[in-house]
């Protein structure tokens, strides 16, 4: 089996599942081999991983100041 046996389009389709570890070991190996020889797909992989990292970082989406204090006010005094 050669590395290029999986197409770029197939790789793009599975990149999210690849990042989440939600693919078979066989597919993972084929994709890894593809990334080693395909600069485009490697760039897409890195970019998508960066997106997941950026979006998932708690510092990027702060909640408004005082939100916690105001959240329960409709319930009334407890």
């Amino acid at each position, binding site marked *: 089996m050669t590395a290029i046996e999986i197409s770029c*389009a197939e790789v*793009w*389709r599975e*990149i*999210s*599942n690849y990042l989440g570890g*939600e693919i078979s070991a066989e597919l993972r190996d084929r994709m890894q081999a593809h990334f080693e020889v395909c*600069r*485009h797909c490697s*760039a*897409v992989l*890195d*970019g*998508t991983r*960066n*997106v*997941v*990292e*950026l*979006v*998932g*970082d*708690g*510092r*990027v*989406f702060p*909640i*408004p100041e005082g*939100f*916690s204090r*105001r*959240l*329960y*006010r*409709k*319930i009334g005094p*407890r």
Partner: protein
Amino acid sequence: MPGEAPQQLDSNEEGLIRRVCNGEAAAFEELVRPYERVVFLTAISVLRNSADAEEVAQEAVLKAFANLPNFRAECKFSTWLVQITYNEARMKLRKDRRHLFDSVDEPQEGEEGDYSPRDFADWRPIASEVLENDQTRQALENAINSLSSMYREIVNLRDIQNLSIKETATVLGIPQSSVKTRLHRARLLLRDALAPGIDGRWSAKQDYRKVRPW
């Protein structure tokens, strides 16, 4: 919940729920506190407006409080709370838009089709300090707000809140396969929106200019 064997609760939450249901209302805040951020971000992912999101968050918490005795622990408490918030936010969106003949439910066409990335710019690893950069935050917020609601909501639940695929499917009322497909497309759309750099200077005919902050 009381009297039943919960399947999805940790013992601490189970105890808190029991206390609230037994009349100790103050325990409710302790129960919800770990999920305050999730509630707000879920609301704003639907409404895209901080004031509206706060209002919906308060309504959702009130509804969760009132309905807690009916919670059957068929899912985690957090999933149940997020589902209430999501439904409240959708209801508000429908109510606010009812005079506009504008459907809240966006077309699903093309969801299953393949998506091809628009550019292949290399993207260096993100430095930690960049995440605290206001410009980065704004670029990311703009990129997420540019997504249609079905992609925005998926990104919020999966990548921001780290809900599992199953939990996300429960909240949105869609199959797990659709969660995967939508998340995948949303991530590639975000990548396309962010890869050219925050000022958008990218041209396929020119060398890539390193204008990104990372």
